[in-house]
């Protein structure tokens, strides 16, 4: 797409220290802690019991609810406990804890799926346990099965990787361009899509070249070079940049005829189609200013952050902040006692100096937040409206269109936590909408009752 127009964004230091470092497999931890909720939707129920012996790729959790992706064991070993724990989001979840036996025997169930049509393809996608690996963790089989399949014509492969530090997608694309392209072909074939656009930020010329080398002669798969502007990898941004179509808040990509998948998701899908091995490992960038040996590692799902850090040589200083994900949208962990799940793509460790929080001062109306917002919102106005709890004004300034990318807060010289406030404001608006709806329903019920009374 070359409309020449772009969505706004910001320039952030790339800090891609690990670019060029091939992904190495991590030595097995002693135990893995596999959470039963690794996706948006219904949590899985464990299908194994304490004392069971499990193998790599064996199903250990599932749920019949439609919005769910099954979970498989990443190791071979013995289930030693199934217990509740508190996630980093403060929710209660269940862990299946497996003592690793080190043999890594492959489960008998792991064999290439038989795919002949769309239904069997979608069944395979579900069986692969895949979720959006870019971080959203939306079950992939749901995403690939939109309500309006005939209107969907384009697959956008997200290879932007716009977060600073993170380079796993980059390294994955360089090493596996061929498999990713095969995956795209399968997706296009079974979902009846016309074309694929692989969006890659221009700071990864080797990844772009890797694709272009094998794509000469392909007319329906192409690479689109994205600008080096954060957040090119945000779903609404990459859709617009690659196709020129605007995804409005509340709509799904399929509504504008697009399915978006992360490049690693496509690769893992292709691997599943070829071998039947579901998603059990995740590649991560381990970096930050105190990691002894910053590198890209492939870890079994359920490995504790702590173990990953030790594998990377430990830390050279006292940890102030540890992130799941990148510095723009990543989640700060209260401790390193959390397990790697499907949606993680980085562990970043920083010292206290880096982690220090900035004191918030008054908004000076400088407009930097407005100039940086890809959604063309006015964060300063939203912040003010939120301060006054003014739902009407929040709606007038389109609060629900915020995608929490953080460009505004990054740019703010007053250090206001704009996207955090806007997230709270969205909650306020949703609560107000729910209240208004309940009130209207109550009124309607009352009127109906009164009418009935009048008839008697």
């Amino acid at each position, binding site marked *: 797409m070359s409309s020449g127009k772009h*969505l706004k964004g910001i320039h952030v230091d790339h800090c891609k220290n690990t670019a060029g470092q091939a992904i190495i497999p991590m030595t097995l931890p002693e135990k893995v802690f596999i959470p039963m909720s690794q996706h948006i939707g219904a949590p899985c129920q464990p299908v194994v019991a304490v004392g069971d012996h499990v193998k790599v790729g064996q199903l250990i959790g599932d749920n019949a609810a439609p919005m769910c992706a099954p979970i498989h064991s990443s190791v071979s070993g013995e289930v030693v406990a199934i217990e509740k724990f508190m996630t980093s989001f403060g929710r209660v979840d269940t862990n299946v804890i497996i003592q690793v036996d080190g043999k890594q025997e492959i489960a008998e169930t792991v064999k290439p799926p038989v795919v002949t049509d769309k239904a069997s393809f979608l069944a395979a996608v579900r069986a692969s346990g895949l979720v959006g690996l870019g971080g959203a963790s939306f079950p992939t089989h749901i995403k690939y099965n939109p309500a309006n399949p005939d209107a969907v014509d384009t697959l956008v492969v997200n290879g932007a990787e716009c977060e600073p530090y993170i380079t796993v997608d980059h390294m994955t694309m360089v090493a596996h361009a061929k498999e990713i392209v095969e995956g795209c072909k399968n997706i296009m074939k079974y979902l009846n899509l016309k074309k694929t656009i692989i969006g890659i930020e221009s700071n990864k010329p080797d990844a772009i070249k890797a694709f272009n080398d094998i794509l000469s002669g392909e007319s329906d798969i192409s690479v689109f070079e994205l600008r080096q502007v954060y957040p090119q990898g945000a779903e*609404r941004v990459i859709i*617009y940049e690659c196709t020129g179509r*605007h995804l*409005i808040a509340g709509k799904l990509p399929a509504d504008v005829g697009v399915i978006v998948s992360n490049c690693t998701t496509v690769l893992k899908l292709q691997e599943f189609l070829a071998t039947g091995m579901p998603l059990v490992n995740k590649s991560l960038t381990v970096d930050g200013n105190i990691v002894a040996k910053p590198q890209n590692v492939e870890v079994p799902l359920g490995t504790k952050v*702590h173990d990953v850090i*030790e594998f990377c040589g430990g*830390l050279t200083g006292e*940890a*102030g*902040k*540890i*992130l799941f994900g990148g*510095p*723009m*949208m*990543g*989640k*700060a*962990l*209260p*401790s*390193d*006692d959390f397990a790697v799940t499907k949606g993680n793509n980085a562990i970043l460790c*920083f010292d*206290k100096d880096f*982690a220090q*929080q*900035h004191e918030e*001062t*008054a*908004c*000076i*109306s*400088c*407009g*930097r937040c*407005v100039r940086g*917002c890809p*959604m*063309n*919102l*006015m964060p*300063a*106005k939203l912040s003010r409206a939120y301060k006054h709890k003014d739902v009407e004004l929040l709606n*007038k*300034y*389109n609060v629900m269109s915020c995608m*929490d990318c*953080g460009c505004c*807060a*990054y*740019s*703010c*010289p*007053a*250090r206001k*936590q704009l*996207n*955090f406030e806007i997230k709270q404001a969205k909650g306020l608006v949703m609560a107000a909408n729910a209240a208004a709806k309940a009130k209207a329903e109550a009124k309607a019920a009352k009127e109906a009752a009164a009418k009935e009374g009048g008839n008697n």
Partner: protein
Amino acid sequence: MAENRTGLIVSSAPHVVNPVDTTSIMRDVIIALIPALIVSIYVFGFRALALTLVNVAACVIFEWAFQKFMHRKQTIGDLSAALTGLILALNMPSTFPFWMAIVGDFIAIVIVKQLFGGLGENFANPAIVARIALFVGFATAMTNWQVTSKMDPAIVAAAGDAMTGATPLALYAKGAELPSTMSMFLGTINGSMGEVSAIALIIGGIYLLIRKVITWEIPVSFIAVVAILSAAFGRDPLFDILAGGVMLGAIFMATDYVTSPINPAGKLIFGAGCGAMTMLIRQFGAYPEGVSFAILLMNVLTPHIDNWTRSKLNGVDNKGGAK
């Protein structure tokens, strides 16, 4: 096996910020005004520096004292009070009495800024309101334009034996002989301390543009409309841009974030409005100069301009329908 690391800092994303903060912005504006200050010291002598220091000190002390007295958080470290003092000083004649200057600083910091809630809450530019108040209250002292030997012959001749004399705009109003364009460009004319040198102000403006502290819309639309209306009124556009407070106002005062619109379209309207008001006052008003009044008026309109020029959602037309 090492102990788990606990008690980590948990804060919301983003976990990195742009190094530019409020203080660095204010510092940049102060740096950008230094060329103008240097020219004024050269043209008007040492008193220009003394008067500037008095203003800066008074503004900082008023802010400190007010916040101390009201038990508010100290913000003098953000340099905004110092900047207000500097800008206000540059809006005064070099002969202005210190005590009157301090009255102006009180108006700017205490009345216009702090009583409205501090930085970010003031509806009008503190330095502009203070300048207008001083102009109304101390009209003679505020128009006591020192003439020195460094100045253009036309200015010196018009002043005769007096130590003070009419500014180029006043000379224009009288139809007298005007200083050369070059003198007005360099700053060897009389007037408010910081107004005289167009080149010094332009250098500062370019610095601010490069540092992305200001954007081009307000200065360019302001100056362009002054030039266009000047030509339309049969005046000399170059003279009107260089004379009086247009450069200082367009680059440093109309661009004050708090009191100007936030969106580019709003900034264009704002700048154009400032230019138009300036020229209407110069051409038809009772005063030879109108920059301050023009900016103040547009400050008052800023919330409305902001509302008219609200950002639209991507891919949605003005009526809320999809494009």
